[in-house]
């Protein structure tokens, strides 16, 4: 008979191993259970926190308050619309006052403006004088104005007429408005 065989001891080892395995399994199960519970609680809290219902209720309440002020809102929209339109027109409309003043200033004392025709693109002007010298001064002033290229450009002499009855010279010029 072999006395080295110890069946009892082997059984104890197996039992200890089994108990250890069971302990680990129980621990894992416990941790997982706790994790699931924790996540569920966190999700519940966050769901409550991000609830859209309360925000929607508040929105409805503000919308109700605004409905009483709709007339004001409409007026505000119209004021904005009128101002926007006015600004657009003000930006694009041409102001001829400075141009008229400049061309009138270029007419010397002895000469007078016989006619002026201004439209969107061009300026036609006739100046009359008994003196050719003042006609020349006017022409020089207009050339200077044209060379500045601020108000007009492309100055063209359309013609110079003489009225033999009163000895008056009439100079007609044309320029492109900038």
């Amino acid at each position, binding site marked *: 008979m072999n006395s080295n065989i110890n069946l009892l001891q082997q059984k104890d080892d197996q039992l200890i191993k*089994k108990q250890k395995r*069971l302990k680990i*399994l*129980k621990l*894992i*199960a416990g941790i*997982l*259970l706790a*994790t*699931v519970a924790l*996540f569920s609680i966190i*999700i519940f809290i*966050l*769901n409550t926190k*991000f*609830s*859209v219902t309360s*925000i929607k209720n*508040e*929105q409805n309440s*503000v*919308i109700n*308050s*605004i409905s009483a*002020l*709709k*007339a*004001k*809102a*409409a*007026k*505000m*929209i*119209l*004021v*904005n*619309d*009128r*101002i926007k*339109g*006015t*600004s*657009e*027109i*003000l930006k694009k*409309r*041409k*102001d*001829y*006052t400075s141009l*008229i003043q400049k061309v*009138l200033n270029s007419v010397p004392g002895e000469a007078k*403006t*016989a*006619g*002026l*025709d*201004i*439209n*969107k693109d061009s300026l036609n002007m006739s100046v009359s004088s008994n003196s050719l010298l003042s006609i020349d001064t006017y022409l020089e002033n207009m050339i200077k104005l044209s060379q500045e290229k601020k108000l007009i450009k492309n100055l063209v002499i359309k013609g110079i007429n003489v009225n033999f009855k009163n000895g008056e010279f009439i100079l007609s010029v044309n320029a492109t408005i900038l």
Partner: protein
Amino acid sequence: MKKNINIDKEVITVLYKKNKEYFLPLGIIIICVALFIFVIIPQIYSLFDLQKKSKQEFEKLNVLKTNYTNLLNINDATLTSQYNVTSSVLPVGKDFAGILNAVSIAASKAGLSLGAFEFSVGDLSKPPTSVKKFPILELTLNLEGDTNGASRFIKELYKTAPISEIINVKTNYNSVNATINFYYKAIPPVNFNEQTPLKMLSGADLTVLSGISKWANTERQIISPSASSSGGFNANPF
């Protein structure tokens, strides 16, 4: 050699009895993993969506609150006055009376006497909204005065309501002939949506408003476009 394994009821009972302690923790682990995969993870994803939606709704709420506060803070009398000024400068319809007033004010300030004038009204059957962005009323008028007077007239007219633009000026010794476009603009459809931010007057807008408030002819009573000949639309949006 293929070994035959015979699993009968007795074997299963023995195996169950031998391993029954494992069943509960293993079951818990399986259920927890399943819960995590099929419930918790989708819930986390939906939480992100919910957060996004909540953020959007919160932004909408903020816009609503801002609109409400802004509307509450606007002084109704000031707003009405601003509306009257802006509507005299850019009328809602063909404001003949306003135009004649403007022309006579500008002529008088420029020291010119008003002569004959002619309106080019256009097709009266078309409502202003269908014409173009800025419909116009063209006026051709004659004034007695010189070129300096014409310059003064333009200067004054440009500071008088309704807003206008000189298209053509002809002067001949002592007569001035001018073609002027007077602008107007029909009332646009007012669709106020509480959830879109209400545009308040900006600094630039206030500058324009302050400029046009000083214009002549802005204090007159606003002519209702329904009373004018511009077609059948309701001008009163309030």
